[in-house]
């Protein structure tokens, strides 16, 4: 902010003007490089697949068709995946946020005996882990395979988020508040619930968003822990369509020619990318500042 104000008042030299022009130009190129692929997916999802195939769609959708979306929305697997993902994201985030905030608050209290030891226990897991196979065996032995809990419990707490939340509590909840509350006979649980949480809305938002995006986007846990298709989250269904090329027979049962099938399957791919990203794309502009905030709080500590 200060820098900006200064720039306005200082006269720029000729060199600086050239510098600024080049800079703005280069940044603009980068913005285009980021946006164009996303934009292309959007126009490709509503263009005639034959024209995409022939390389005739570049800037505007051509020969607009909603066939892809119609086929996607008539597919029951996609809807089931959507439903599953929403449930997993909701329950998972609830578990994540409650465990993380409670632990982070306890660890933010300087009067907690043994907090350094516990913090070390948590941190150590960032640098060394038993690995995929032993973790899989634990999940298996707990009888979690093929249940939604296999996607939720093994990811219940992220150390990094504990650090972020703890830093926030340490820097924004004044100690005097705790002392005053203690004088009035307030218990720790009550203090956390009635005073700390209401004062910590930004960090709660950050945690909810970090965890929710993680759940929504993850496919790997579902890949290894689930083999019942009815439990598949959206990302796994997407993987089958986008990468395994199983643009489910159901979606294209009425098409006979192989070539036409291939074109339509490409159309479905573009559409499915949009459908899967819609929740994030819609929310993103509104919640972006919270994400940035989360990174910055983490950065102070790091």
């Amino acid at each position, binding site marked *: *902010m200060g*820098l*900006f104000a200064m*720039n*306005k008042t*200082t006269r720029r*030299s000729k*060199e*600086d003007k050239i*510098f600024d022009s080049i800079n*703005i130009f*280069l940044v603009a190129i980068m*913005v285009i*490089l*980021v946006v164009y*692929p996303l934009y*292309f*997916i959007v126009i490709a999802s509503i263009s005639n697949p034959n024209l995409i195939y022939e*390389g005739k769609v570049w800037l505007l959708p051509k020969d607009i068709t909603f066939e892809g979306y119609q086929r996607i929305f008539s597919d029951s697997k996609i809807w089931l995946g959507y439903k599953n993902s929403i449930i997993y994201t909701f329950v998972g985030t609830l578990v994540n946020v409650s*465990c993380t905030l409670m632990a982070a*608050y*306890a660890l933010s*209290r300087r*009067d*907690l*005996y043994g907090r350094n030891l*516990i913090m070390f*226990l*948590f941190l150590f897991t960032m*640098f*060394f*882990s*038993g*690995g*995929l*196979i*032993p*973790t899989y*065996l*634990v999940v298996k032995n707990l009888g979690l395979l093929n249940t939604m809990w296999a996607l939720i419990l*093994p990811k*219940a707490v992220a150390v990094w988020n504990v650090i972020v939340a703890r830093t926030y509590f340490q820097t924004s909840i004044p100690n005097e508040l705790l*002392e005053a509350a203690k004088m009035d006979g307030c218990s*720790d649980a009550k203090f956390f619930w009635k005073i700390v949480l209401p004062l910590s809305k930004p960090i709660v938002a950050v945690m909810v968003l970090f965890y929710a995006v993680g759940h929504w*986007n993850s*496919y790997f846990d579902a890949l*290894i822990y689930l083999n019942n298709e009815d439990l598949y989250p959206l*990302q*796994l269904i*997407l*993987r089958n369509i*986008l*990468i395994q090329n199983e643009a489910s027979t159901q979606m294209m049962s009425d098409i006979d020619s192989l070539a036409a099938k291939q074109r339509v399957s490409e159309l479905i*791919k*573009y559409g499915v990318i949009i459908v899967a990203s819609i929740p994030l794309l819609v929310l*993103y502009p509104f919640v*972006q500042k919270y994400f940035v905030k989360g990174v*910055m709080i983490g*950065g102070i500590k*790091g």
Partner: protein
Amino acid sequence: MHTEVRMSTKIDQPAQNIKKAKFKKLLNNYQLYLFLLPALIYFIVFHYFPMYGVIIAFKDFIATKGIMGSPWVGFKHFERFFDSFQFWRLIKNTLGLSVLQLVIGFPLPIILALMMNQIRHEKYKRFVQTVVYAPHFISVVVLAGMIYVFFSNNGLINNFIMMFGGESISFMAKPEWFKPLYIGSGVWQETGWAAIIYLAALAGVSPELHEAAVMDGANKWHRILHVDIPAIMPTAVILLILSVGNIMNIGFEKAYLLQTPLNQPSAEIIPTYVYKMGLQQAQYSFAAAVGLFNAIINLILLVAVNKFAKKLSGQGLW
């Protein structure tokens, strides 16, 4: 806070009293320990149990006998891995991919942050930020899907190449294209997001430093070199240690999605190999051994890099 003060005044009293005070402190805070309990159980069950379970790497794991009951076999699985024809290829692929990612992926966010920091128009700046952070939120499945559709034989990229008279390239079938696709998509997705932390560091630079530099006749370029870059060095060092320390922890998820039967020779990395050996072929002990080997190399690297950085710049993770 005040309990500590109380304790220190009691320092000359018998040890018994101190013990009592400690116990009282524990008891007073029992609700805080209850708060910690779920997370603690989580870390013990899903992180420390597996660390114990990794001893199956030194056993022949038999599911019915459990981890304890399975017979010890020493370093058999490690030897088998070191002797296998896959070994050097896996090391080469894993290290090659992550070193390349580090060399290309590390400096770019710094450059981007320095550039964004120079934008004077606040609205344009905010617009740029919103745009470049966005790809971070795209799921890895969607990202891989985008790569498949863009780089297919008649995808966007090949159409572009052919428009200029070039020949269509089968990107997904060529081993030599795996690394560029992996790294390039990572740069596209994460550079903006990774720049946030440097932008924060740059926002903390005191304006007086810049004003003084301007007085001394420094232009923008000089100020970037002599004010901005030194200001973000500490952040950069920490992030560099972290990334070098994680060099063998290259993401499994994207590599696995980008593998095709044809690009296997360069796309197979240790994590995907562990997954295939362990979970697809159920060779638990062997796969656990490969995973453990990877984790230990990583830990050694992290400790070494941290020590090195401390000596060099006085900063480290611990």
